[in-house]
């Protein structure tokens, strides 16, 4: 359904992506895993139209997304839940959810979706008229996932769903994503720093580091975790290995958890 072919993205002189290719098939759960700053967020932003690759192509169901603004890509059925949640804090919970459906023509189906989201996320129903900024971090994460689903997407991309949330809440978020996948037949592309979660959750895994894909395989072939560790940190890959930093040690801790 989604084909990303050899895209390059620069931020000024910094090369964020140096040839990233990924594919996502209908109904699949694909995870991008890799350390902080590897280019995972940039990859999702490029697909969603937030940044423009200077080389390579991105196709959704055979149609090129090159040059389309983010709102047009969203209308083609790609929904991005960016890192850091981005609820509209001054808007109520209900307004946040409805805003996902404003571009849709099918008003009655949108109203039904609204009800369905509240069944998926009963905590939101109690807070419908509250400003979204007052929700807890976990509730905000549920709200932005619900809001993304209100656009009736073909592909949902979630950037670091566990960032800044307590482990227990992260489990809940992933449980909900899994449940939604089963009930709604979602196609998911997820960024995650923790390889352990990815192994439980994904069908296929890409390891991203330094703006490149270092490993790509079915999750079932990677269950021992060794190959992921090697690709994640670049062991035995002296030329590419950056010197150890505080950030990297922190990532090491996360993978070992």
């Amino acid at each position, binding site marked *: 359904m989604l084909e990303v072919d050899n895209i390059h993205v620069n931020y000024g002189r910094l090369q964020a992506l140096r040839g990233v290719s990924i594919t996502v098939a209908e109904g699949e759960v694909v995870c991008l895993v890799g350390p902080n700053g590897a280019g995972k967020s940039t990859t999702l932003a490029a697909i*969603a139209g937030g940044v423009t690759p200077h080389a390579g192509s991105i196709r959704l169901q055979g149609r090129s997304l090159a040059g389309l603004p983010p709102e047009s890509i*969203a209308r083609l059925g790609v929904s991005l839940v960016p890192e850091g949640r981005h609820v509209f*804090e001054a808007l109520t919970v209900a307004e946040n959810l409805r805003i996902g459906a404003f571009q849709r023509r099918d008003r009655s189906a949108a109203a039904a979706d609204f009800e369905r989201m509240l069944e998926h996320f009963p905590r939101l129903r109690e807070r419908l008229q509250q400003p979204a900024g007052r929700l807890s971090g976990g509730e905000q994460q549920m709200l932005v996932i619900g809001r993304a689903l209100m656009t009736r997407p073909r592909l949902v991309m979630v950037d670091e769903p566990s960032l800044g949330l307590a482990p227990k809440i992260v489990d809940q978020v992933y449980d909900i994503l899994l449940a939604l996948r089963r009930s709604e037949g979602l196609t998911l592309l997820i960024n995650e720093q923790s390889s352990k979660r990815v192994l439980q959750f994904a069908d296929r895994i890409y390891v991203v580091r330094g703006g490149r894909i270092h490993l790509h395989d079915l999750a079932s072939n990677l269950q021992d975790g060794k190959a992921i560790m090697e690709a994640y940190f670049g062991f035995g890959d002296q030329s590419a290995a950056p010197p150890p930093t505080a950030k990297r040690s922190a990532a090491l801790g996360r993978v070992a958890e």
Partner: protein
Amino acid sequence: MIGFLQNLIDALSLGSLYALAALGIGLLFGILRLTNFAHGDFISFGAYALIVPSLDVMATKFIGGWPWYFMLPVVAAIVVVLALLSDLLVFRKLRQASAPTLMIASFAVGYVIQNVILMVYGARPKSIDVWSHLQQQVVIGELRVPQLQLVTIGVTVVLLIGLSLFLGRTPYGVQMRAAAEDFRMARYLGIKANFVIGLAFAISGVLAAMTSLLFVSQTGTLSHMMGVPLMLFAFIATVIGGMGSLAGAVVGGFAVGFVSVMLQAYLPQELRSFRDAFVFAVVIMVLLFRPSGLIPTKALAQRV
């Protein structure tokens, strides 16, 4: 006491003009990070739309002679077209530009409008009377209030209620608030950037048109610079209210109006000609104690 009440009504009426102009500026700043210094010239343009375009010294009323229920929508439409054109021809090309670039561009747009007015209408100020019958005073007890002040306050209240209903209750209003808070996220949800920005320019045009009608009916004079001081005070109003906050723009507008009128009334006679210096001193005091304005917005804190 009566004197104070009289001053209070003056303050409300002047504050109304500032609040309307400040809202027009604040709306665009909230969504586009554009500090639109051309807003004052939108106001001038709306006022000149009332007369027949000519270099004659005497103004001949054109739209200004129509009954108000035709005059309001037509002048509003003219200024809306002007605002949309300035977006289409200038600001749309600068979507990726920084806030200072946008601000400089707005100065340029303002100069172009001023010079178009100069070319078409000439440099001499012209007098025009719009709604002069509203100069009659309403007597309430010992209080004598020109009807025009009551109309000004009334129109402002209606516009404020209308705008807050639009922003609060309609899907387009919700989209605008979302875009003002997090433009990128709004676009990821399929909200059309150019549409929302166009809507903001259009509303800002309607506000400018209403400001120009109320303003010209008070002063009775047209000049190609007439909107500039109004814009300046409105800009100050948005700053002390809190840039990007619409409630802040309104509060700031009334605050500036209140301070101006009260200083005019209660400063010693020999200092009155320096009134504006005192107004700005108050503004500086406000900013010293509340640097992000009376009603700060979070969106701004993140971006600056």
